[in-house]
Structures are given as structure tokens and as C-alpha cells.
């Protein structure tokens, strides 16, 4: 069993906060153990809670599309959330729930040692900014800018953007997320200069 599998097993048995009482399935995260890019969302929603997998609903479809847009597949990245169990009625995770659950995320980051972390939404961005010793004001203020930081003793590039679920209700957010993620795309993969 590798470290990620051990963490996943501990998440499945976890009773650190009250979310374990209402969850159907905990969602530890999934992807490559040597992923270059890690996507960190906020907390599982209804579909994720049903299936025990991260980002499997409509927002997940969009995330898959974004990953494909940067020339990768879901299997090649690692996808997880700050909070591993679904908050009832999809409410925001409470600070104490983030506090209780985030050690799992910390261990996942250490185990994977990604080159880039994409934080999706304000909760994961706020948490990772705090870990990096940065001041977080709002997701709108920090999104789309890649910052080189040290998190848990690792040098990583952190790219904050909106949560993909926000794009489902607001098409303008969708194009901003696309614009942000395109910054990860390799140089040169653009047809416009030939048009």
C-alpha cells in the first residue's frame, strides 16, 4: 500500500468531524501518485458523495474538459478537496471541518510533491495561501496569477482560480477559468498565429 492509499483508507475510517455522520461515501481523491499537477477543490457534492470520487458531476465534466485543454488526462493529474466528506445540502465547509480534515490534504501534497497546485475556489485557495504564508483577500483578487510558493517544505507553483461549479451558473466565470488554466498549457499549442 502506498502513502496515498494509506491516506485514503484513513479518510474512509475518519470520525474527526461531524460530517462522517451524514456522508454516504468519503472522497479521498484520485489520480497519479507522481502527478505534476494537483487540483484541490472545496468539498464533495451530491454526485461525489454517491460515488466516492471527486468531481464527477457537471462541474467534474468541466474540470475534465479543462484538464484535456492543457493536454493531459484525469489519470495524469491528482484531484482532491480540502474537505473529504460532503457538507449537508452542499453548504460551505465550516472552519472547524477544514481544520479537522486538512491534515489529509497536507499529507497528500507531501506524498505527491506536485510541481503545480491548482486551487479551485475560495476555500481551497484560502487554505493553501495560508499554508504558503500569503494573504488571501478574495478569489477574484488572486485568480489567474501563478505564484511560486513554499508549501509544507515543497517549492510549488500555485494557480488559484474559481471553482468549476461556479461556471455552471455564470458563463463569464467559465471563460475566466479557461483563461486561467490556459496558463498551464505548453508554449506553442495555439492555432491562432496560423490563422
Amino acid at each position, binding site marked *: 500500500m502506498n502513502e496515498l492509499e494509506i491516506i485514503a483508507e484513513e479518510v474512509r475510517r475518519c470520525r474527526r468531524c461531524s460530517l462522517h455522520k451524514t456522508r454516504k461515501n468519503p472522497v479521498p481523491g484520485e489520480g497519479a501518485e*507522481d502527478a505534476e499537477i494537483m487540483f484541490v477543490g472545496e468539498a464533495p457534492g451530491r454526485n461525489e458523495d454517491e460515488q466516492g470520487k471527486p468531481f464527477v458531476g457537471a462541474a467534474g465534466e468541466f474540470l475534465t474538459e479543462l484538464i*484535456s*485543454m*492543457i*493536454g*493531459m*488526462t484525469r489519470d*495524469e493529474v491528482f484531484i482532491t478537496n480540502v474537505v473529504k466528506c460532503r457538507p449537508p445540502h452542499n453548504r460551505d465547509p465550516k472552519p472547524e471541518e477544514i481544520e479537522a480534515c486538512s491534515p489529509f490534504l497536507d499529507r497528500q501534497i507531501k506524498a505527491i510533491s506536485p510541481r503545480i497546485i491548482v486551487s479551485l475556489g475560495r476555500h481551497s485557495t484560502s487554505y493553501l495561501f495560508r499554508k504558503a504564508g500569503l494573504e488571501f483577500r478574495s478569489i477574484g483578487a488572486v485568480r489567474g496569477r501563478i505564484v511560486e510558493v513554499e508549501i509544507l517544505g515543497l517549492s510549488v507553483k500555485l494557480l488559484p482560480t474559481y471553482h468549476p461549479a461556479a461556471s455552471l451558473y455564470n458563463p463569464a466565470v467559465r*471563460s475566466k477559468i*479557461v483563461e486561467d488554466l*490556459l496558463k498551464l*498549457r*505548453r*508554449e*506553442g*499549442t*495555439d*492555432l*491562432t498565429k*496560423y*490563422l
Partner: protein
Amino acid sequence: MVCAEVLFDDAKLFKGIVSAISAIVDEATLKVDPNEGLKLSALEPAKTAMVQLILPPDVFSEFKVESEGYYTVNFKDFEKVLKRIRGANSVKLEFMESRLVVSSIADYRKTFRLPLLVGEPFEMKSPKVEFKSRLRMDSRKLPEIVGDLKLMGSDVRIAIDNEKAVFRVESDRGESETVLTRGDPAVMDIWSDEPSESMYPLSYLDKMAGPAKVVGEVRMEISTERPMKMFYPIGGISEAGIIYYLAHISEK
């Protein structure tokens, strides 16, 4: 009021055409023209891939179009609708002012009405690339080739000269190589003005292999450090087909 009415005699092929577009873009504008038929040209949001469609009037068994029109269609919804049309021999499309009516008759008549927006007029604009090497092959083999390559990485290096086309993927996971040589049953033709080699994202090539399920041939054109063109001819009619352009991964 019906602005245009066309009948396509091969429902399976038509589903494949719509899926080929939907694989690249959610929404795109169709040009419907009495002389040119149906045309589409759409760049995906990441600007890495482009899809074009050219279906001249002769491709259709009925083609009643009075004047040029541009209609914006949600291809994801269009694809879902066509998946409900099973076993039908033909698909009829009626372009109305704000609706696209899709119908088919198999054991009984099915009709779907999709919202349609008035699209912006466009000209077919293709990437200006001088392609130096070309491969014509049995497209049914393409999904298998892409599947083999995906096992070992995310970027494929394609090299074509006068005798062979080599597809190679290398990563920490290992290596995968496919060689198509002149004379192989899967190769229809291969030629090159100068040996060419470029690297492309496999995830896109995977999407672009979709039409292989419904079209028997694909023509792939590359140049060194340049985008790729893929053409799936349709119905044996000159120019008719699905065209993809895919940006290369710059190695400079």
C-alpha cells in the same frame, strides 16, 4: 417558417459527424447555403484545435435551401438528440427562425426541436500551413493506434517520410511506438516533400479519432514544428468531409 430543409440518408454517419464537432466545441455556427451546402468552422476555446465541416448539397438526398443562413447550434444537445435516433435510415433537418427540427422515421416518426440562435456570418478560414508530409490510411485503425500510444504518455511525436509514418510516445511510464510502412494493409498512401516531425497532445488526437467509427479513411498532413491537419472524406464527394487542425507542442 422553414428557412431550409435537408435530408441526410445515413443516420449513423450523420450522428458521427455531429459527434466529431461536439468533441471539439459545445456551440458553433452552421452556414446553410443553396450552392455551398452546410459549412462549419469552429476554434475550440483553448485554441489548440479547430474543426471544420463541409457538406455540399450533393451529400444530401434532399436539399431545399432558398437563401444563405447562419444558425448557431448547441452541438452537445444536438448529439444527445441524435443518440435517440436508432435504426433510422435518414435524418431530416429543418432550420426555422429559432428552432432546429430534427426528425427521423424508422418504426415510427420521432421529432425533436432544438433552440437555434441566429449566427454571425463567417468565412471558412483555415490555418496557413505548408504541409510537407501526408499519410492516407484506413481510419478504422486510428482509435487502436491512439489507444496503444495513450498507455505510455500524453504527447505523441509523429514523423512521416516517403516510406513510413512513425507514432512514438515516451514518458516515465515507458515507450510506445507504432510504425505504418508503405505496403502495410492499413496504409493507403504515404508521401513526403521532406521528412517531417512534430509533437501533438494525445488527448486531442483521441477526440479527433472519433469519426473513424463512421468514415473509412483519414488523411493526416504534417510539417516539422507545425500544426497537423486531419481530413475524413465523406460520401466520395470532392471536398466533403470533416477537417481537424491540431496545434503542435513547441519544442523550441
